[in-house]
């Protein structure tokens, strides 16, 4: 068989060809194609995110408002679950149905059979304690610790806001966030997100095919520790906030109280409110859906986002502008015969003594008086535009019609029309001081938020200026004013002596005018009632106040929707709050009782008594 010796060449060639094909293939796979190296990294490296504890939030007295409670995400690696897995027992442990189990399990399996994914989110510490004892019976399941916000005082929901998981849109916009991160969605949580969130840490682990950790990657060279968020101390007085919310129960409206000397917000109430704990954890989306469909709009922050006309409370501002413009003196008298007639029309007023001077006009809230004042301000200038612009500048100097700059998101600017608004509406040159006369009594186009109104009172209480209102007092023990340059003193451009005239009048309002229901023994409370005309239903009851008259400690605005006259709801509530804050006692329990029991969410009882306007 020697004759076939040449076939050795063919067989050798077959061997060599296979060897060469292998080497070419290996060169391609090992040297040229980098995809396999990436896949290998994905296989073996797990970045374990170390979530930082979010900063705690305290009130001005150090009462804890928001803290973190541990919650647990139950994770699953689907591949580890085999047919021996005790599904029934597991479902009992987790209190879920077999269908619920299958649904979650399939979702995890669709994500990856080999990588861990969330099976059940945000299990509370209490439920976890039970699960933990038995979890070792169920290989393939493990827990990852998270923290959830908890609100022990169950108050100030709108102001504190809530956190949620960063959605894809946020992640795209800000590269800091990754899927699974929490982010402040509203309120303080949103505005001070960067302060509160802290810094995420990470640990790069090597894992085996069952996702079991096998040690640190490169001895932890890529690991970082999580840095907790800074703690925040608010200017809010939690007790006052809770008390205000209680007084406002079963009513719609808002209360904003400010410490005039510092611009620190003492309460920021929007009613109806909700328990902030509802928007935490697994129940969040269900509860959010419920709240957002509630016709009373509990999620809507009226304090910052609802614009109401100021009503008669605005008369004080018109008086101040008139005095500064020197078209008004405290002694000027205007007569009022149940209203103010002009060009065949009449702005009505209620029955009172006439003629009226400045003090009495505020005390009894005379409409005719302010029609005269307003007209004399505007008509003092050669054109209505010029006069109007001067007036408008004073108004905006009180922080009205523009954002107050409070450190909370979604603040409404409010509305004071510009001249071009009237030019469009009435045509240029076709409007006069009488056309816009409703501005004299705080009606018409004006729209201010309760926040702006409280700020306006602050300027009156301070006799001419306000400090930019703010809600954060200290960050990690350091005063906010030391690094927030937006907190400044804002001047109204009206001299203090004129303020004294108006303040005296506002004192009389409470002492013996329309606001006596806010009167507190041996406390000099200044205030002004208002009744806001409401085209959609019953008028809104409003009251602005500050106390004490000298060296005021608190200034506030109260809106009670559909509450009719300012004296009926807003003024007593303001009085109770002032007394609570300054005295820490309530001397008029019968008024408190009436406020607590008042229900304006259903039908409003008809007004029969001669309560002031």
């Amino acid at each position, binding site marked *: *068989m020697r*004759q*076939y*010796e040449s*076939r*050795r060449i*063919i*067989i*050798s060639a*077959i*061997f*060599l060809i*296979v*060897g060469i*094909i*292998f*080497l070419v*293939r*290996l*060169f391609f*796979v*090992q*040297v040229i*194609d980098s*995809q*396999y*190296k990436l*896949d*290998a*990294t994905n*296989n*073996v490296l797990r970045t374990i995110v170390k979530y930082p504890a979010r900063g705690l939030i305290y009130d001005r007295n150090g009462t804890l408002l928001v803290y973190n409670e541990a919650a647990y995400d139950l994770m699953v690696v689907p591949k580890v679950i085999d047919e021996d897995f005790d599904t029934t027992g597991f479902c009992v442990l987790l209190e879920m149905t077999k269908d619920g189990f299958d649904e979650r399990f399939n979702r995890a399996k669709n994500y990856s*059979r*080999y990588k861990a994914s969330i099976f059940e989110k945000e299990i509370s510490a209490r439920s976890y304690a039970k699960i933990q004892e038995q979890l070792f019976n169920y290989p393939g399941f493990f827990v990852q610790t998270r923290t959830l916000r908890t609100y022990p005082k169950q108050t100030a929901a709108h102001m504190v806001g809530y956190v949620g998981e960063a959605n894809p849109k946020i992640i795209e916009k800000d590269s800091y966030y990754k899927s699974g991160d929490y982010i402040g969605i509203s309120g303080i949580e949103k505005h001070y997100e960067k302060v509160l969130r802290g810094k995420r840490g990470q640990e790069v682990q*090597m*894992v*085996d*095919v*069952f996702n079991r950790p*096998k040690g640190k990657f490169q001895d932890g060279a890529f690991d970082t520790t999580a840095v907790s968020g800074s703690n925040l101390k608010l200017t809010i007085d939690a007790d006052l906030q809770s008390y205000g919310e209680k007084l406002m129960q079963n009513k719609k409206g808002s209360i904003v109280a400010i410490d005039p000397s510092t611009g620190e917000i003492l309460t920021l109430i929007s009613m109806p409110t909700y328990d902030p704990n509802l928007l935490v954890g697994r129940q969040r989306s269900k509860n959010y859906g419920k709240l957002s469909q509630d016709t009373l709009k509990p999620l809507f922050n009226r304090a910052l986002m609802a614009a109401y006309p100021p009503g008669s409370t605005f008369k004080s501002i018109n008086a101040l502008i008139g005095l500064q413009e020197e078209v008004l003196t405290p002694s000027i008298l205007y007569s009022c015969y149940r209203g103010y007639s002009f060009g065949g029309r009449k702005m009505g007023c209620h029955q009172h003594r006439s003629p009226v001077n400045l003090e009495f006009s505020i005390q009894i809230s005379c409409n005719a008086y302010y029609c005269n004042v307003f007209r004399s301000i505007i008509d003092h200038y050669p054109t209505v535009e010029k006069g109007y612009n001067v007036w408008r500048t004073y108004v905006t100097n009180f922080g009205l019609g523009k954002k107050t700059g409070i450190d909370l998101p979604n603040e409404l600017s409010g509305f004071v029309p510009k001249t071009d608004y009237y030019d469009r509406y009435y045509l240029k040159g076709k409007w006069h001081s009488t056309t816009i006369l409703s501005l004299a009594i705080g009606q018409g186009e004006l729209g201010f938020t309760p926040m702006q109104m409280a700020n306006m009172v602050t300027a009156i209480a301070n006799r001419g200026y306000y400090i930019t209102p703010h809600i954060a007092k200290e960050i990690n023990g350091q005063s906010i004013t030391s690094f927030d340059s937006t907190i400044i003193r804002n001047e109204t451009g009206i001299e203090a002596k004129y303020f004294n005239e108006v303040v005296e009048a506002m004192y009389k309002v409470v002492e013996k005018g329309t606001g006596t229901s806010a009167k507190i023994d041996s406390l000099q409370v200044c205030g002004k009632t208002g009744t806001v005309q409401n085209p959609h239903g019953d008028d809104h009851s409003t009251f602005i106040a500050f106390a004490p008259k000298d060296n005021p400690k608190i200034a506030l605005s109260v809106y009670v929707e559909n509450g009719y006259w300012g004296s009926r709801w807003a003024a007593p509530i303001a009085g109770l709050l002032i007394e609570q804050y300054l005295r820490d006692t309530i001397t008029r329990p019968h008024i408190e009782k009436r406020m607590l029991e008042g229900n304006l969410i259903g039908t409003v009882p008809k007004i029969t008594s001669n309560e002031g306007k």
Partner: protein
Amino acid sequence: MRGSKSLIDNIDWITVGLYLLLVLAGWLNIYAAVYNEEFESIFDTTQRYGKQLLWIGTAGIIATVILLIDERFFSTFGYFIYGFILSALVAVLLVGAATKGATSWFAIGGFKVQPSEFSKFATNLALAKYLSTLNIRMTDLKTKLTAVAIIGVPAILILLQNDTGSALVYGAFILVLFREGLSGNFLLIGLVSAFLFVITLIFQNDLYHFPFEIEITGGWMLIFVLAVLLSLVYYFNRKKKQVLLFVTVIFIASSGLVKSVDYVFNNILEPHQSKRINVMLGIESDPFGAGYNVNQSLIAIGSGGFFGKGYLKGTQTKYDFVPEQSTDFIFCTIGEEWGFIGSFVVITLFMALLLRILFLCSRQRSAFARIYGYGAAVIFFFHFTINIGMTIGLAPVIGIPLPFFSYGGSSLWAFTILLFVFIKMDADRLEVL
């Protein structure tokens, strides 16, 4: 003349050296594949690398014994050994232990022996003995049928054990027959059939649309293309004798093959086997199912890069991403930890061993030794091709070990016997008349 001095002089130490290198590399890589910080000693016999060391030691004893046995023992007892192994294969079917769906083990005490590993050696011995008989001509039909029977009987018995991979190895003997004078047409027919098989699988599920709403399935489309091609062959060779007959036979045979592939694939092969073939051919993509092994194997090898991650630093193999990594997928550890350099060295070592055996075959005076040598070479070659081929996605996943590397006593012993019997034959070649 037969002193131990001359034996040492006559042994081909190059082959022995290549063997030792491969076995040593295999052992080190098994250590790396099952490396565990808790059992760091490479000599720990509770671990696979420790056990493999025991196998290597006993394999050394076996090799020494073989070298001391008279070479004529193997030719004299060739059929006896073959018969003994055949009965062992039958016995294992009756009393054997099943592992992973294959009934191929004898469990004797704590040991497990796999007769199918040794039957390759026995079959090679019997085939060599038969083909080296005087006046045997490969062209005779009787010779062909007898040779096929010698190869086929153990292959069928192993197939009955449900160990398709080991059975396929026997197909490699066609190269020995070819070397001994089998017409090259058989090799060619084998290659063309395999090609048609693959092509048919790829196209069988396609539908081709033609005008007048005529739809043709992939199988019929292939037959149509074959008809056109063969008509052209006939047209250009029409003046030669018997061309029409030749072309017609080829057409009928290949059409039959194409149409039967569907049947074989769907009715004869097990579902997991057809799936593996489909995945390898890229017809199906299933990275977490049938394709998982190959995908992870490619990731491990590919992530090794040019220089590798370093010994014991392979993450993919160490953390069990690659299944069966100390047995069938041992090449992944080499590829990941030693990189392209390591792969290159291993492939070169195998090539050197194979070509060295072929070289030694050429210098044999006896046909028995030469045929045996070729048989050993093609068995090593087949294992090498399928095993490494499957780890890099060039061959279907057929669980057969990489000679000298894969963990396992039976396979190491069997490959050692297979090789050292030939080394012994070569050492004694001058004494053959």
